[in-house]
């Protein structure tokens, strides 16, 4: 009997090459784990280098596929559960860049700790796969699988500093609250399934577009959407679902924090685009006001609470909440044209913001990592006193990142903000655009405060000299170069981001 069933089971056709970025990361993870376990400790820096190479290869494959998509159009893979479009590839590249930079940053940080081995790097790669699956999912269940792969890796990463109670606390907090949000999300999928009869995004769009509500139960769908928004809101740390973020960001090892703020956030927002903008345009008038309110409170609360912090990691955590508010402004703009043939500039502005912000936030946390190493893990703002006298180049790099986060021209941060505001204004969302800009001014105060501490106060008498490890230096230099080059010549990236509106459906 069993054998007969196996005979009749027809597996979906799998286009292996189209899945190659994910497969590269997966294969790389396994090789890293196995080889790492079976061989003696690798020479200095090789784990990080291997990780960066794997992520780089995945990124290059994604670019190759970008060309293929440009030439041959978008499609869905593996029986329609994975979307093969430039949105997936854009986010894949963003996530791979994030992994490369974070791996370089982690190298020196992990040396001399019990974690100096392949495990942390393997977890980065696993999380990256999860993120890519989230960004490419064309089925809510697959999206949930990606979400869990990302989240589970991040729970472990957050608590990975075994010598620190704060890290353990951060891990457990993240785990409990993350578990809650996953449950919300899953329940949301169940309700939406109940309302539409499918979890596949393409089928869902088709079912809703026919105007046929199979069970005649719209409230089921709306309740499902509400739960989905709660789940996603947790993952992107939108107010009022943000309370975990400052504690987790502060407690986690700094490279991991940078990973959560870049890759984690980018993947969660990509998932939000998939779930809301691509899958549920039918209900856009229902969920758009919710996003509007979320954007508003996220911007305001994030900016104001950032200003009163004293710990640099906590400041950057709140500032990342305020940046999430900016991205939500882009999502709100995308909502106006969701599901139409020309969806407008909302989605491109969101993905542009994500890639630019990811690099910025990793760069910022990289400087924090380097500085806090010399002060014994202390990330109080006082440990940045007089950094300009001790390490002028490092202070200059941090200044570039902070100015970019504040949205000063000639940096990538300005291009990111400009794109989002432009998208909002084009759909006549003037109020939220103005609120976002005013919130940016409030947040600018925070960045100025850090800069003042670095440039105008004298270093403490007992301040240790700050050593810049080579690999972290490379990561910081690359991030600075990217920030300035994109700030001056952004056209190519904007062109690339503009293609994501032609998503697979």
């Amino acid at each position, binding site marked *: 009997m069993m054998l007969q069933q196996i005979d009749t089971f027809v597996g979906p056709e799998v286009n292996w090459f189209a899945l190659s970025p994910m497969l590269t990361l997966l294969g790389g993870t396994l090789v890293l784990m196995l080889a790492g376990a079976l061989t003696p400790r690798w020479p200095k820096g090789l784990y990080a280098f291997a990780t960066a190479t794997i992520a780089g290869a995945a990124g290059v494959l994604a670019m190759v596929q970008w060309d293929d998509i440009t030439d041959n159009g978008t499609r869905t893979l593996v029986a329609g559960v994975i979307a093969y479009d430039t949105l997936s590839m854009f986010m894949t590249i963003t996530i791979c860049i994030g992994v490369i930079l974070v791996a370089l940053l982690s190298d020196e940080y992990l040396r001399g700790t019990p974690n100096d081995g392949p495990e942390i790097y393997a977890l980065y790669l696993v999380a990256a796969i999860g993120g890519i699956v989230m960004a490419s999912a064309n089925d809510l269940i697959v999206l949930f699988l990606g979400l869990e792969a990302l989240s589970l890796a991040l729970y472990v990463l957050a608590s990975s500093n075994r010598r620190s109670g704060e890290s353990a606390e951060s891990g457990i907090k993240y785990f409990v609250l993350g578990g809650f949000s996953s449950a919300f999300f899953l329940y949301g999928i169940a309700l939406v399934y109940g309302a539409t009869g499918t979890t596949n995004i393409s089928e869902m769009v088709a079912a809703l577009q026919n105007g046929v509500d199979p069970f005649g139960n719209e409230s089921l769908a709306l309740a499902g959407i509400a739960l989905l928004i709660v789940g996603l809101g947790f993952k992107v740390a939108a107010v009022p679902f943000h309370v975990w973020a400052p504690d987790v960001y502060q407690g986690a090892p700094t490279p991991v924090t940078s990973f959560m703020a870049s890759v984690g956030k980018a993947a969660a927002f990509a998932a939000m685009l998939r779930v809301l903008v691509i899958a549920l345009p039918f209900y856009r008038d229902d969920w758009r006001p919710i996003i509007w309110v979320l954007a508003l409170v996220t911007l305001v609360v994030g900016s104001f609470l950032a200003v009163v912090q004293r710990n640099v990691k906590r400041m950057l955590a709140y500032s990342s909440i305020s940046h999430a508010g900016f991205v939500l402004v882009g999502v709100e703009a995308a909502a106006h044209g969701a599901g139409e043939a020309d969806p407008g500039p909302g989605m491109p502005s969101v993905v542009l913001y994500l890639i630019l912000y990811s690099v910025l936030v990793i760069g910022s946390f990289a400087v924090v990592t380097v500085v806090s190493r010399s002060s014994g893990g202390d990330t109080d703002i006082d440990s940045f006193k007089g950094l300009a006298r001790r390490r002028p180049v490092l202070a200059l790099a941090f200044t570039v990142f902070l100015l970019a986060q504040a949205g000063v021209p000639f940096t990538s941060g300005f291009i990111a903000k400009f794109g989002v505001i*432009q998208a909002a204004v084009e759909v006549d969302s003037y109020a939220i655009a103005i609120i976002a800009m005013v919130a940016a001014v409030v947040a*600018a105060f925070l960045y100025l405060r850090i800069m003042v501490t670095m440039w105008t106060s004298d270093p403490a008498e007992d301040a240790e000299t700050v050593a810049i490890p080579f690999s972290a230096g490379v990561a910081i230099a690359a991030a600075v170069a990217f920030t300035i080059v994109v700030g001056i010549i952004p056209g190519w990236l904007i062109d690339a981001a503009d293609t994501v509106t032609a998503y697979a459906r």
Partner: protein
Amino acid sequence: MLAAETGPIGFPILTALILVPVIGSLLVALTPKTRPEIPKVIALMSAVGTLAMSVWLMASFETGESGFQFVSKHTWIEPWGISWHLGVDGISLFLVVLTGVLFPLAIVGIDPHHDEKPYLAWLLLLQAGVMGSFLSLDLFVFFIFFEIVLVPMYFLIAGWGYENRVYAATKFFLFTMLGSAFMLVGLIATVAIASRDLGYTTFDLVEIAEGADFATSTGRWLFFAFAIAFAVKVPLVPVHTWLPDAHTQAPTAGSVVLAGVMLKLGTYGLLRFGLYLFPEASFWSRPLWLTLAVIGIIYGAIAATMQTDLKRLVAYSSVAHMGFIVLGTFAFTTQSLSGAVIQMINHGVSTGALFLFVGMIYERRHTRSIAELNGIQKVAPIFAAGFMVVMLSSIGVPGLNGFVGEFLILTGSFLTARWWTVVAAFGVILAALYLLWAYQRVFHGEPDEENQSFPELRVKEGLVLLPFLGLIVFMGVYPKPVLDRIEPAIDALITRVEENTDFVEPEPTIRIGEHGNDEPADGDQPSDEEGDG
């Protein structure tokens, strides 16, 4: 006029005016620590090179042309319709020259006392930003330069200022950025709405101004979004509170540049992006601006009178003077607008020189408090004489530059904004009150023990001040070459306002140049030859 054309010799001089300071700044930043004498040489070469180019620009500027000259236009960010579009007309020409003149003098004349290298690098970046703001004809390009000047200025104030510098620098940054926040949204909305008329997206100022037709209420909203940013920058009461702090706490060079050219970004912006882009809205809202301007004139003067800190006094006098410029701008007559433009230059020269003097006093006595200074005239008569000339120019005494501007503004404004002008005229008297009173307290009387040893003006300081004094006298007795270049652009601007509203410019009652309010002097050299000294 819209075609991309460069200057007579095909050299992209406007781009060079922006890039030379940037390159200078990078070179300064890259000099090794072991050679502390090099940064100043590089900075000076860069600043003098910029000055030479701006003088050449003025010399080859076609007098009598109202359009933009030396236009250079290149696509920059294609998907967003942004181009590197630069041009200069009569309104911006002298602001560019003023920027060229002030920076080399600030570099030579003022010693930062510590960390000279970053100081010079920031100063040059500031120059590039200011130049870019005056030259750009693309909304996006204008905005990024308008915004970027905050960064070097912030660092100059926070790094080289006086006791309360961090507070002042932060306040300055946040106030201006808040204004810009509204402008950015307004700017993008302008482009988005204009693109519906034009059929394509462009940030080009000229294309939008000529091709787009904003509905009346839309235009008014957009104008206000821009105007908030400029009102903060000018600054107009009630958003002026950053200025006394920033001016007082800034290092001398910072104050000179802030008063000299950066405040003009606000009034220039009102002309270029208010009157030119939104003529109807500007005309409609003129009672508001006239009222704010007059409040600024009177309030600034009264506040200046009551100051105990000499630098703060000069700062508040700026509030009053900038009020005159706004008054002239929103009176919509050729004379008042020409007066406003020429007053921008005059205020830059006079107040810049005043801040230099206050800086020198601080260097000598380490105080800015009026109460601690007395009898300086006895021990340093040349110093006092120089201060006197600059002060009289600031008061607006005939024969010096301040008079020309204020007189043109008041005569022009009287025709269209009579009662505002009447009140504003009291501001001239108040200016005499606070400046003369301050002069009396600081320079007259018997010097006490601490002021006995007040050193006389040094030769180097004198050489730095000479161009300022030359300009003050020259512009006072022979402003014609300057006015000739300004007026065509102003006439075009007023024509534009007349076309878009029911406003008709009244005939001037006093014709300057025909009845001879300014005696025609004999020199026919361009107005800033003294500026080269």
